[in-house]
C-alpha cells in the first residue's frame, strides 16, 4: 500500500476553474473521504487522481512517485464507478480479470486471483454470469472485485453506493469498511452523504467550490469545525445558527446575549480568545445539544411548529421550511404537540461562535 499526496492542484473546464488549488495527503492504508455539496469538485478531484482528467497544474504523487501525467493504468490505482461500469458483454470472471489480462498476466495466474477476490466478496457462484443477470448489490461487488484483483496501491471510490436502496447501502457500507480493515489499503472515497463520511472515514476532506474547507477526523470536524460551512455540513440535522452579540468577557469565556431566544450572559469558551472581542457573532448549537428537561441555568422556550418522530428520537422545528428555523432533538416519547412550547436547556460547553465572516472564534 502507498501514501497519496496532492499539492496545489488546479483544473478548469473552459472558462470556469473547478479545482482552485487543492493540497492534501493520505497516509498509507488510510481511508480518506472527500465530501461536499454537489458541484464542489470532489468527483473531478478523484478523476484527476485516477488520470481520467488532466491536471492543469500542481502534482499528484503515489508512494512517492510523481504520477501527475502518467497513464491511469500505470498509476497503481483502481477505481469503482458510481454506475459500476461493468462490461455488459463479458462474464463476471472476465470483467474482474480484464485488468490483469491487459497487464499481460497468464490465464491460470489470473483465474487464481479472480477466484480469491470472488471468495472474499462471496461471488464464487456468479463467476460465469453476465452483469445484467445480477442484482444491484452483486454488480457493485463485482466492480469492487475488479478493483481488488489489481491489488492497487490506492483504491478510488466514486459515490459507489448512491444507486443502491437504503437497506443495501448500509450493508455495503459495512462490507467496504471490513474490506478496508482486511486489505489495509489506502482508499479515497467520494460521497455527498455525510453519514457515509462519518462512518467510513479515518480522515474527511470537506470541499467547497474547488477549495478545501477543512481536513480532519470525523469527530474533529463534528466537534471542532474551522468555519460555519463545515459546522453546518457535518452532522444531521444541520447545526442551528442564531445571531447574537457579545456583552463582555469573564474568565476566558465570552458572554453572549441572544435576544431572539431571550438568552443573556451565556459564557461560551472560544477556541482562541481574539485580540478584540467582536460586537456581533453567530452562535452555533447542534439540535442534539438542546436537551429537554435539563437543569442548568440557561434555558430557552421553543414554539413547536412541526415535529418529526423517528421512534428513538423526535425533531422539533420552530419554523419548518425556513432556513433560520431552530431544530431541537427530543426524546422519542416526547409528548410535545404542534403549537405547544417546550423548554430546553443550553449547554455552553457545546456551543460554537463564528465571526461575521463565518470563521470559528
Amino acid at each position: 500500500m502507498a501514501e497519496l499526496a496532492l499539492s496545489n492542484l488546479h483544473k478548469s473546464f473552459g472558462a470556469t476553474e473547478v479545482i482552485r488549488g487543492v493540497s492534501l495527503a493520505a497516509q498509507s492504508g488510510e481511508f480518506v473521504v472527500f465530501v461536499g455539496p454537489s458541484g464542489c469538485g470532489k468527483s473531478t478531484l478523484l478523476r484527476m487522481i485516477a488520470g481520467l482528467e488532466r491536471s492543469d497544474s500542481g502534482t499528484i504523487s503515489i508512494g512517492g512517485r510523481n504520477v501527475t501525467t502518467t497513464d491511469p493504468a500505470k498509476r497503481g490505482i483502481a477505481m469503482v464507478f458510481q454506475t459500476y461500469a461493468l462490461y455488459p458483454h463479458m462474464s463476471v470472471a472476465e470483467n474482474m480479470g480484464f485488468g490483469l489480462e491487459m497487464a499481460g498476466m497468464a490465464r491460470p495466474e489470473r483465474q487464481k486471483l479472480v477466484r480469491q477476490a470472488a471468495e472474499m466478496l462471496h461471488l464464487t457462484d456468479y463467476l460465469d454470469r453476465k452483469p445484467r443477470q445480477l442484482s444491484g448489490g452483486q454488480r457493485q461487488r463485482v466492480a469492487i472485485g475488479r478493483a481488488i484483483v489489481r491489488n492497487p496501491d490506492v483504491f478510488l471510490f466514486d459515490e459507489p453506493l448512491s444507486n443502491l436502496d437504503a437497506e443495501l447501502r448500509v450493508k455495503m457500507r459495512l462490507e467496504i469498511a471490513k474490506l478496508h480493515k482486511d486489505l489495509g489499503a489506502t482508499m479515497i472515497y467520494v460521497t455527498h452523504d455525510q453519514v457515509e463520511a462519518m462512518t467510513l472515514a479515518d480522515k474527511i476532506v470537506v470541499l467547497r467550490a474547488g477549495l478545501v474547507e477543512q481536513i480532519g477526523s470525523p469527530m474533529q470536524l463534528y466537534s471542532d469545525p474551522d468555519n460555519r460551512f463545515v459546522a453546518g455540513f457535518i452532522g444531521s440535522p444541520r447545526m442551528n445558527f442564531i445571531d447574537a452579540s457579545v456583552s463582555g468577557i469573564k474568565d476566558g469565556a465570552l458572554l453572549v446575549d441572544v435576544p431572539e431566544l431571550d438568552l443573556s450572559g451565556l459564557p461560551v469558551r472560544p477556541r482562541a480568545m481574539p485580540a478584540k472581542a467582536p460586537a456581533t457573532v453567530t452562535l452555533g448549537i447542534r439540535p442534539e445539544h438542546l436537551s429537554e428537561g435539563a437543569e442548568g441555568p440557561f434555558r430557552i422556550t421553543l414554539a413547536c411548529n412541526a415535529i418529526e418522530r423517528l421512534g428513538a428520537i423526535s425533531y422539533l422545528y420552530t419554523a419548518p421550511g425556513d432556513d433560520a428555523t431552530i431544530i431541537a432533538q427530543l426524546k422519542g416519547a416526547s409528548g410535545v404537540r404542534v403549537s405547544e412550547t417546550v423548554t430546553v436547556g443550553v449547554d455552553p460547553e457545546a456551543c460554537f461562535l463564528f465571526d461575521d465572516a463565518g470563521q470559528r472564534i
Partner: protein
Amino acid sequence: MNRSLGLNAALVAVVAFFVVLVGLPFWWVVSGSFKIPQEIIARSPTMIPQSFTLQHYQKLFEASDYPVYLVNSLIVAASSTVLTLLLAIPAAYAFFRLVFPGRGFLYRTILLAYAFPSIVVLIPLFGLFAKVGLVDRLPALVIVNVAFALPFSIWMLRSFLAGVPKEIEEAAVMDGAPTLTILRRIMIPLIAPGIASVGIYAFVTAWTEYVFASVLILSDAKRTLPVGFSGIIGQYQIDWGLLLAGATVAIVPVVAIFALIGRGFVSGLTEGAVK
C-alpha cells in the same frame, strides 16, 4: 400500454394500408410471372392467376445467364460490405470518441460526400479506372459502392457509439487497455447490433446499384443482377412475362438473405448498443 378502441381501429387501418402498398405490387409481379402472356396483358387482369406456366423462367435462364449475374452481385455486395465496415468502424470510433484537431470539420466534409451528384463522379471515375485497368472488373464496382456507402455508415456507427456509456470506456482505460484494444475488445462487441445494421445497409446499397454498374461493366460474364436484368428489358419488344420472371428472380435472393439477417438489421437499428 393498452390502446383505446379508436386507436386500435386506426392502427389496423394503417397496417392494412401499408400491407397493400408494399405487398400488393410484389404479389402482382410474382403471380404475374407464372401467367401465360395473354393473361398477363389481358384487358381485365386477374388477381389470382388462372393459368400457370414456367415458360418465362425457362426463357429467362436461356436468354441470359442469370446465375452468373447473381454470383457477381453477391461477390460485389459482400466485399463492399466488408470493405465499408473495415473503413467505417475505426473512423467512426476516432470521430466519436477521440479528440483531435479538425474533428468537427473532417466529419462534416465526409457527410458532404453526398452533396455530389453521383453522375459528376461517374465521368472522372471512369477515366481513372480506365487508366488503372479496372474497367470491366468487379473491384471497380466494389470501390464505387464503398465510396457511396461509407459516409452514411460512419454517421450511423457514430450514433450507435453514442449508446455506449462513457464510464465503460473509462473503466477499460483504468484497466490499462490501450485504445486499439478498447475498440476491439470493448466497443465493437458492444455495438455489434449496430455493425450488423450498417453491414446490411452497405450490402443493400451495393446490391441495388445500377448506374455505375451499367457503365463500368462491359462484358456480360461480369454483369451484376441489376445490369443483367436491365439487359433483358430489350428495346424492340417488351415481353412482360420475361420481365416479371426476371424481377421475381432478382427479388428472391435478397429476400432470402434478409429472412436470415433482417431481424438483426431492425433490432440493431432500434437497440443500438448492448445494454
